[in-house]
């Protein structure tokens, strides 16, 4: 604010008091005689009147156009035709029935015909596009049928896919793409799929699998866990009463090309069935090796042998040595045999492998790490027989004397 005193002005509003006012029309340049003599008319008012008149004229013209259109639309082509005033479509009422058409003729081109035989539609080329029979109710559509719900009896698509009122789908040679979701139901016939899922199982061209948990392949392979192979090849377990045949694998026991490996023979002594009723009469059989493996026993055919000599001719194997082999009675150690075994904790007759080894070592089987393990009856018995034969000869000699 400036330093000096401020001037205060009290406004005075001007009024018409003491005033003379007038208004005249200013002349256009160059002025005309008419303009100069005009004193009462207002050019502005005249312009407004002209504008109003123009607006009225426009309104009248619009009304006239509307009336003209209405009049034109009211004219009908004939006494048997009705024309839609907006779309100009015609409806013919004649011997054919009721025909709605837009072309020049009610019997050709695009039209819809309704009569006692039913309802029929035709395209601009005169080709039938749909029909509904009044007598049978049969409907034919050349285009697509769309809608939210289709109700009725059976939906038959060219005989290749049929859905009846019970919900059964019969598809012949059909390919279904997309997802099929069902809470229950069944399929008959074959299901071919190159991909997709069923109940969480993925279908591929040659297998179905559920993540990495289980896979079943068309070549018989079954995988589980981290997609490692559980089974490959042929398996025929049982064939008899369910539950009587079984395959049990525990701990680190395994099967491979070299044999069956059981981790704890002290617990499961019967790693093969002692109750088998069918045995072979073949010379070759099986035995348990000193390392616990089930192996073939040697066969006795001459086809497998050479350097065949009489046992007594081999001094090292002189069966008389067996006369020095102690025959013992003993109990098996605790937990060596199944506690329920009938011979557990009872004295049973037998040999001691270490004594067999000392007397007749060829008949002793050895552990890979612990020395003498068992005695071999397929060796000890022939030697015993040779001893019996020798004694028989001596008996007969003594008796003949």
């Amino acid at each position, binding site marked *: *604010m400036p330093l*000096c005193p401020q*001037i205060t002005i009290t406004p*005075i509003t001007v009024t018409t008091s*003491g*005033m003379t*006012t007038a208004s005249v*029309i200013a002349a256009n340049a160059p002025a005309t005689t008419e303009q100069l003599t005009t004193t009462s008319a207002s050019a502005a008012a005249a312009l407004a009147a002209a504008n109003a008149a123009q607006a009225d004229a426009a309104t009248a013209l619009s009304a006239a156009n509307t009336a003209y259109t209405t009049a034109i639309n009211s004219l009908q082509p004939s006494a048997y035709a009705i024309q839609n005033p907006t779309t100009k479509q015609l409806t013919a009422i004649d011997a054919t029935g009721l025909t709605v058409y837009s072309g020049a003729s009610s019997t050709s081109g695009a039209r819809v015909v309704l009569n006692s035989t039913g309802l029929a539609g035709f395209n601009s080329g005169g080709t039938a596009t749909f029909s509904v029979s009044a007598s049978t109710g049969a409907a034919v559509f050349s285009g697509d049928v769309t809608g939210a719900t289709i109700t009725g009896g059976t939906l038959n698509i060219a005989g290749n896919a049929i859905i009846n009122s019970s919900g059964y789908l019969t598809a012949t040679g059909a390919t279904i793409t997309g997802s099929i979701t069902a809470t229950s139901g069944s399929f008959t016939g074959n299901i071919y799929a190159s991909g997709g899922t069923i109940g969480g199982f993925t279908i591929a061209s040659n297998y179905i699998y559920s993540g990495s948990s289980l896979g079943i392949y068309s070549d018989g392979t079954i995988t589980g866990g981290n997609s490692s192979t559980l089974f490959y090849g042929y398996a025929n377990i049982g064939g008899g009463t369910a539950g009587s045949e079984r395959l049990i694998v525990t701990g680190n026991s395994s099967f491979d090309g070299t044999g069956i490996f059981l981790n704890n023979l002290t617990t499961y002594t019967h790693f093969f069935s002692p109750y088998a009723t069918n045995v072979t009469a073949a010379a070759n059989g099986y035995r348990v090796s000193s390392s616990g493996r089930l192996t073939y026993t040697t066969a006795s055919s001459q086809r497998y042998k050479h350097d065949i000599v009489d046992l007594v001719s081999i001094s090292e194997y002189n069966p008389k040595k067996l006369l020095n082999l102690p025959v013992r009675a003993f109990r098996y150690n605790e937990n060596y045999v199944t506690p329920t075994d009938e011979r557990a904790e009872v004295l049973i007759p037998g040999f001691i492998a270490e004594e067999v080894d000392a007397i007749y070592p060829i008949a002793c089987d050895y552990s890979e790490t612990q020395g003498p393990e068992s005695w071999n009856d397929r060796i000890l018995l022939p030697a015993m027989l040779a001893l019996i034969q020798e004694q028989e000869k001596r008996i007969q000699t003594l008796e003949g004397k």
Partner: protein
Amino acid sequence: MPANAPTLTVAFGLNGTFTNVSADLILTVDIRRGRMYQDVFIDAGTATVVLNNQSGAFDPSNTSSSWYNTLIAGMQVRISGNSTVIYTGYLEDNMVNQGIYPTVSLTFVDGLATFGKTIAPALATSAYSETAAARATRVLDIAQWPAGSRSLTGTTVMLATGQGISCLDMLEQCANVVGGRFYVSRTGVATLVPLANKFSRPTQLLFSDQGDANSVGYDGIITNPGTDYVYNQAIVDRGPGLLQYSSTFNASVTTYGLKSKKLDAPSNTTTAATNLSLYAARKDADAAVLVEQLDFTPIGIGALATDFLETELNDLVTVKRVTYDGRSISINCVVEGMAHSITSDNWRVSYFTSLVDPYTIAL
């Protein structure tokens, strides 16, 4: 220049960047703004700056001068006192004196000159019923006046105007329609002030020949009994073919005879046009003594220097004097124009004023 005089600064610039001219090279500065008489439309503000050109620095053809390529048409000048801008204009003429004492005389004009030289094209129909402020904006756009240098107020609605008139004439129409004024401020702002705003103008200075507190002394005064400026009939001309409205203040006609003036004011409504004629017929209908010109030296006025330098056209001043016969007179004035004549050792100022009138009306 005495030490207690406002510090003069002259700066030249292009595109809003100004460089001060060395003060010791400034010989004279003359500024004219506003109008000398209240019954004429405002003139373009001018400034003439004469500089010592012994170095040839202000010769626009001197390629070695630091002012080369600055002293060109459109160069802006900003003249300030104590850092307060008192004039803003654009270079119009450059006279180089190659005599014994080389000088250069630079003449500047403000935006009003630009508006006077720009012819407005026909207005679009969308402009037929716009406010005076909108019309002024449209005109200033035509004249390419910077949008940031405008202060436009005026709500009275205007009619379309004829074509082929200058932007300045159209701006005068805007001022007439709102019963106000249009001018370019000391800082270069195009300003439209309506009638109602005249009551809020500040009183910038008190002039006294008796040494009143916070007053500025003056050494020259021209008073006028006021009869020269009596107008008791006003005709509002809205354009060819349209109604003109005239009002006559009968009492004044009885005293002074009929004195008419015409306002080129295309008001859109009958009421606005009628009221404008009533106002114009009344506000100058009474003769009264006024100060037509007041001369003073703004040196040694202390803190009043700021009020002096910030005085704008249409601001108010009060002039007190004691007549030779001993009568004390106080006259409230409106600054209609001003002139600064500044040399190396003096600063002379003349204010051209009109009488403050209290009349108003709704427009």
